[in-house]
């Protein structure tokens, strides 16, 4: 428990964090202490933490699940060459997913805010209706955006459907926009000036020291340079590969086991989704085509969800013998 924030025994107050990474570390410790498996980011380009198979696929089936992780996320259209104080094409989300959603999930969540220095006794925390929907994942849920003093600091969602499958039991999903949350906690006005490590460290680094240059490079790449011809081709390739992998006979000749390649196929779905986002940023997808592309990615997500439901991890537990 040594990495948990030290609480002043008398007041219950938590020492305020001093850097971006300290906020991440405190969230990691907090959710680890609450019993979540602390996973590492998924090693692919995704638009949001929800895309991590630990959320999309693991929210299906009846097996209990509890995971927390940081997920680097990319939204090519949000690039602003590192100049906008709040917008980035590459940013971090903190994601918590628990199945079945525990009855005290709201309290657990509020505890995590206390851990990073947002004390509800001093701030105005509000749960404001916000229903979540991901057309590309064929997923939706009901919940709130959580406001702290009028600022949206998290999304709180009870998943109802993923990949076209009803979620039974229901997973509770928490998503923290880390940069925005940290800027608020640390009192920073421009993301690039935010201390990434301890500002008193011998080599103190700001967010800008690490990411200003990459934001410039990727903004140029996303808006002007990425080869659209190649991206279109890769989209088609990913789509075809996803279908191909799922068409294999589940019986594996080498091992003699039943192996449905749900995760490798889902990787292709993730790829297709990111390629679509890049094409969108390049401005080569018209309004009407847009819906069609989203529909194609959703079709892949649905197939992968179907396949995952055929696997051990995604199956429904057999009825307990009476």
């Amino acid at each position, binding site marked *: 428990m040594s990495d948990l924030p030290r609480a002043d025994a008398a007041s219950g107050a938590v020492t305020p964090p001093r850097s971006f990474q300290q906020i991440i570390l405190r969230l990691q410790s907090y959710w680890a202490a609450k019993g979540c498996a602390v996973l590492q980011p998924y090693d692919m380009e995704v638009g949001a933490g929800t895309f991590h198979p630990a959320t999309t696929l693991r929210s299906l089936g009846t097996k209990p699940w509890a995971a927390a992780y940081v997920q680097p996320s990319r939204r090519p259209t949000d690039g602003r060459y590192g100049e906008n104080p709040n917008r980035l094409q590459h940013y971090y989300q903190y994601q918590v997913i628990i199945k079945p959603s525990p009855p005290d999930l709201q309290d657990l969540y509020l505890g995590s805010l206390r851990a990073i220095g947002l004390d509800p006794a001093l701030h105005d925390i509000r749960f404001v209706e916000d229903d979540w929907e991901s057309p590309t994942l064929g997923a939706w849920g009901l919940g709130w955006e959580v406001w702290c*003093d009028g600022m949206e600091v998290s999304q709180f969602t*009870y998943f109802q459907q993923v990949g076209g499958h009803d979620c039974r039991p229901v997973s509770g999903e928490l998503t923290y926009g880390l940069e925005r949350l940290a800027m608020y906690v640390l009192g920073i006005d421009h993301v690039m000036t935010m201390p990434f490590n301890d500002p008193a460290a011998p080599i103190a680094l700001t967010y800008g020291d690490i990411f200003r240059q990459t934001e410039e490079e990727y903004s140029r790449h996303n808006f002007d340079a990425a080869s659209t011809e190649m991206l279109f081709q890769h989209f088609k390739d990913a789509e075809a590969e996803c279908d191909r992998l799922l068409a294999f006979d589940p019986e594996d000749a080498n091992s003699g086991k039943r192996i449905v390649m749900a995760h490798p196929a889902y990787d292709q779905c993730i790829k297709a989704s990111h390629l679509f986002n890049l094409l969108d940023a390049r401005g080569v997808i018209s309004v009407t085509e847009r819906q069609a592309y989203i529909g194609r990615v959703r079709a892949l997500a649905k197939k992968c969800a179907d396949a995952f439901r055929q696997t051990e991890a995604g199956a429904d537990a057999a009825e307990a013998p009476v």
Partner: protein
Amino acid sequence: MPDLLIELFSEEIPARMQARAREDLRKLMTDGLVEAGLTYAHAAGFSTPRRLTLAVEGLTAESRPVREERKGPATTAPAAAIEGFLRSTGLTLDQLERRADKKGEVWFAVIERPGRAAPAIIAEVLEGVIRTFPWPKSMRWGSGSLRWVRPLHSILCILSDEAGTEVVPLTVDGIVSGNTTRGHRFLSPGAFSVANFEDYAAKLKRAHVILDSAEREDAILAEAQTLAFAAGLELVEDRALLTEVAGLVEWPVPLMGRIGADFLGLPAEVLQTSMREHQKFFSVKNPKTGRIEGFVTVANTVTADHGATILKGNQKVLAARLSDAKFFWENDLRVAKSGMADWAEGLKAVTFHNKLGSQSDRIARIAALARDIAPMVGADPDLAERAAQLAKLDLRSAMVGEFPELQGLMGMYYAKAAGEPEAVANAARDHYSPLGPSDAVPTEPVSVAVALADKIDTLTGFWAIDEKPTGSKDPFALRRAALGVIRLLLSNDVRLSIDRLVDVQILRHQSGPTPAAPDLLSQILSTATEHGMFGDLTRHLIASAEKLVPDWLVPVRDHNPDLSDSLRDFLHERLKVYLKDQGIRHDVIDACLAMPGNCDLTLLVKRATALQATLQTEDGANLVAGFKRANNILTQAEAKDGVEYSFGADPKFAETEEERALFTALDAAEAAIAPAMAREDFAAAMQAMATLRAPIDAFFTATQINTDNQIVRRNRLNLLHRIRAICLSVADLSKLDG
């Protein structure tokens, strides 16, 4: 008589659903209780973000026993019939009674249901209500299967009277009812038990929860006004926002802040919209400058620093939002001042509907039609066309991208910035109006022209691609567009033939944005606007295009008015609905619709209004009876004799005083009606018509139409024909009820 208290305690209920939900809870519960045989004195529903509450006063302690007698089949009926009766009553044969009936002996069932205690009934009804509650959207959570708007945590359900309080036992999906609840999430999170409604409301207040949303609204409004007043400012009232905010807090604490000086140059509507939509802030105005200079946010908690941290945070979020708005505004102004060409270009790539082309194509059509309409509404054609070309360009502006509800309004600001005339800028703002049935209708001529053109283009477009509204489905809001056309015409007293405009705009749709033979098209369009698509001049013009017949000309050449007829019928249908709301009878409208000139809706309504007024007079109402009598006799005689009695009533064959008087009266009425109709003075025409009532009544009383003398009979039938002709020249009275 006990009182019932129910509280359904859950995670945060969306603000917009609360009012409906507390009313649904009240109605469904009380309906269910009454259905089950209980009565009550009074019931009230309450809601906060975390609870739905129902308080029922004076509930009966048990339901009345019910004795029901049901008559069954004859004792001689087939066995199957008797078995069916037993099944439906749940009795056995030996429990039935034989009774004598008119037709013989029949079986009678006497069913007695004893009274039931209130708790059993309440538990049953409440469980049913919870399981089938009509939330607009509901969800499951955890491993359960119950659906509620958000996870349901506890059910408080108690009956109380002088003797004490008892919990009504029930269990819904593992949630066991009790007599406890909780206070404010942060200020008083502990659980406590309650004895009755007064105790409940009082303890909640001590636990930082104001139960009644009206009380929360009042508290917010009063405190917000006080804060503004103390700073020499005034609150901009916003009822809808007040209701929403009251649904977001259990313990409202208004806090006032100032808007940074950097942002005070933004249009007031931008400030208000941004603050309301994103932050749920009330706007605070400086009464001296009229500018929006401050805001009130409503926190849900009290803090040791009296909200200082909360206010600072909110101010920071607002600054970030308004920086965006300012960035949009400044960029947009740059585009506007350079003539908005970028936006016009951008709209070429935006599809309006895949069968109706781009927004840019649509704007070109609307501009052409606005030009056609301009002279009919007293607008300058150049200005109307220009206004239509600019009115929708703000759809490409960054500000409207962020706040779609500011469309039109931003168009006005940007048109002004571009140096356009006031009338053009105002048309950008007003051309979407009227949207709702009680929306203000534009009155400036240029705005009226563009607003009409916009709506007629939408209607004709969707008519041309056969996307008409059906039943409850109206995805393109065409009923609203039709009502918009009607209100624009009527309230501005616009006189025009809607058919002609519909015809020319359908042709513009059919010919597409880059038509073959554009010169011929523009000739036809301008001739048709003036003389009608099926007028002689237009037909000559079409006939002259012997060799060159582009596709778009084919339906026009082949004379197919079905499309525009069907749209005109739709407009007439909407007009009927509209006039019905104004208190004009549907048969009165039918009587006027049957008259020529029904493409001129303003004229149509004038006629209908006059007719309705006439029918409300005694003479008018009786005249209709006289007309109908004359019409019936005449129609029957004409059918029997196989001739039309339409000529030659001659006073010299008149035999009675009353008959002669009718001749005189008809002459006088005719002399008055014709000129009145010519100047469209329907009131005068109908007044003249109504004077016929007395002579017609007298004539029928004194005179037998079907006499043996054929000359006299024919003369009288011809006289009836004059009555019919004169009346029908005013309105088709045969369409009237009664």
